[in-house]
């Protein structure tokens, strides 16, 4: 039985370097390819910013080729530097003073569109909020920095060719190539899933499943094989990563080709950047003329501080909450210092609403060692039929939810994450 692991990351830290999906950007190597002339447009003339015609030429000699390769590598390096700079900028935003734009917005209590509108509001809000940011930044500083994985990007021609193939495969406007990078001894193809309709992670994951239903269950396999052809490598060396960036939580899907099967790993991230969330909420309330007094602002700051500094407390609070939530079923909890293993069965209408099936949920909540501000939540659901009030034996839960009830399970996990992350806030 194919068993899928549903992974959700509940980030609690203001500036934690959770591996968020990259925003849609120019594919790596594009500029370098243009610089070196190693482009699909090769010999065509393209106007530059000044309107002058620039003629691209393919490298004809060995030194030229080596130079082109060096430039490509330099471009990749530049991108890494940009990425690091972005992290540094985010950290600066969290510290609440070094990033001029964002800090300026928050200090003025607006998002930029209503700057200066509420400058006469009580300063205690600002100080409370700045304390909040400062606490978050201090907690962030405790977490060990994550070293970026070394990566090498595929030529731009590969990305363009693949994008063309996607367009002809009925995926135009739905999937866009974000990057194709050589990471940890394998090629990682990152595609951005998007739609023009208003969406969240459930809609996008359902969209993907609908696509698979429409274009065939071998769609992912075909995509992997196509990229393997483009890169001239074996298909097992290609991982397909489909990212659907939504507000919160967001969804990501990874396909890996094994010897026997195509593994699918669903991730549902809840990147709760608390600082940013509270900053936005605070700014919004401030902007709307909210006048709850200084105590409200202080309360938010205090709660924020406790959330950021104690993943353990949230783990304990999660256990209490989940025991209560699953009280009508049978709950088994194995609680360890950093891990909470919870199995609940004899549940009805918990995930599959209205289906009247007996459900079994297995939740694993891990407080990552060395990063106390992050919790990882995994869920595995199965169900069994049955009439009446007698729950089935444990062995009867043989039908996994992730096959036919994917949207329900991912939606449930999203709701659960939202509830869990608010536990301490509500306390």
């Amino acid at each position: 039985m194919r068993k899928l692991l549903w992974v959700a990351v509940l980030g609690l830290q203001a500036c934690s370097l959770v591996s968020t999906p990259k925003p849609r950007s120019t594919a790596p190597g594009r500029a370098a390819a243009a610089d070196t002339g190693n482009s699909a447009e090769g010999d065509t003339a393209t106007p530059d910013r000044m309107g002058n015609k620039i003629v691209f030429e393919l490298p004809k000699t060995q030194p030229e080729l080596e130079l082109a390769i060096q430039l490509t590598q330099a471009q990749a390096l530049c991108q890494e530097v940009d990425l690091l700079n972005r992290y540094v900028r985010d950290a600066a935003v969290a510290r609440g003073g070094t990033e001029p734009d964002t800090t300026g917005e928050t200090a003025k209590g607006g998002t930029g569109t209503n700057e200066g509108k509420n400058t006469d509001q009580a300063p205690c809000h600002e100080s409370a909020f700045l304390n909040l940011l400062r606490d978050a930044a201090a907690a962030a500083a405790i977490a060990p920095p994550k070293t970026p994985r070394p990566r090498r990007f595929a030529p731009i021609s590969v990305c363009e060719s693949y994008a063309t193939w996607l367009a002809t495969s009925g995926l135009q406007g739905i999937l866009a190539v974000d990057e194709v990078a050589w990471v940890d001894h394998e090629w990682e193809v990152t595609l951005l899933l998007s739609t023009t309709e208003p969406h969240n992670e459930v809609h996008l994951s359902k969209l993907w499943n609908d696509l698979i239903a429409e274009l065939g269950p071998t769609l992912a396999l075909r995509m992997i094989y196509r990229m393997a052809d483009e890169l001239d490598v074996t298909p097992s060396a290609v991982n397909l990563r489909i990212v659907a960036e939504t507000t919160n939580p967001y969804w990501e899907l990874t396909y890996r080709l094994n010897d026997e099967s195509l593994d699918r790993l669903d991730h549902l991230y809840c990147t709760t950047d608390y600082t940013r969330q509270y900053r936005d909420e605070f700014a919004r309330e401030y902007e709307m003329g909210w006048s709850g007094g200084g105590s409200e602002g202080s309360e938010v700051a205090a709660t924020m501080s406790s959330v950021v500094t104690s993943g353990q407390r949230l783990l304990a609070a999660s256990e209490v909450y989940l025991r209560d939530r699953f009280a009508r079923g049978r709950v088994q909890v194995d609680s360890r210092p950093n891990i909470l293993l919870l199995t609940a069965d004899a549940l009805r209408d918990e995930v599959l609403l209205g289906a009247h099936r007996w459900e079994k949920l297995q939740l694993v909540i891990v407080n990552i060692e060395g990063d106390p501000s992050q919790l990882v939540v995994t869920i595995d659901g199965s169900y069994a039929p049955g009439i009446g009030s007698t729950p089935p034996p444990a062995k009867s839960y043989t039908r996994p939810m992730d096959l036919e009830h994917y949207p329900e399970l991912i939606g449930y996990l999203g709701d659960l994450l939202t509830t869990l992350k608010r536990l301490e806030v509500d306390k």
Partner: protein
Amino acid sequence: MTDAELRTRIGLFWVITHFAIIATIIVCFFLGGYEFPDMTTLLAIVVPMFAGITTVVIRYFAQHRHDAPRGKRVNAAYVTLTWLLPVLFSMTIALTIILRALNRAFEDFDQAKLFLTALEALYVTYTGYLLAPLFGVEPDALRSAQETKKSPL
């Protein structure tokens, strides 16, 4: 009791039970006691159990639709056995299906499936020996009819 009366009663009982059990499976499915694959598996097991004898019974009644046989008296032991085994057989099958749907018996569906298969081997042979003389066929004819239905290959 004469063999003609016994034949009529046991024949009707068998045919009605056959369709009642099929209906039970379908009702349990609609109430949520079984998933669709489970229901089809159950039907595939249960229908051939009855089908061999049901076919013979229906064929006999169809062929002798104008007859009004008086029949010969049969002894009490034969009557008792002729009723006891089919009733036990059909009750066990029905209870297996219902209790499994209510989660009151068997750890999982596979256990129920194996139990029904074993039940068939136990009952059908004896039932065949008892009912075959009533309907003018050889016991092997009943069993072979079931085996044919069970293994279409």
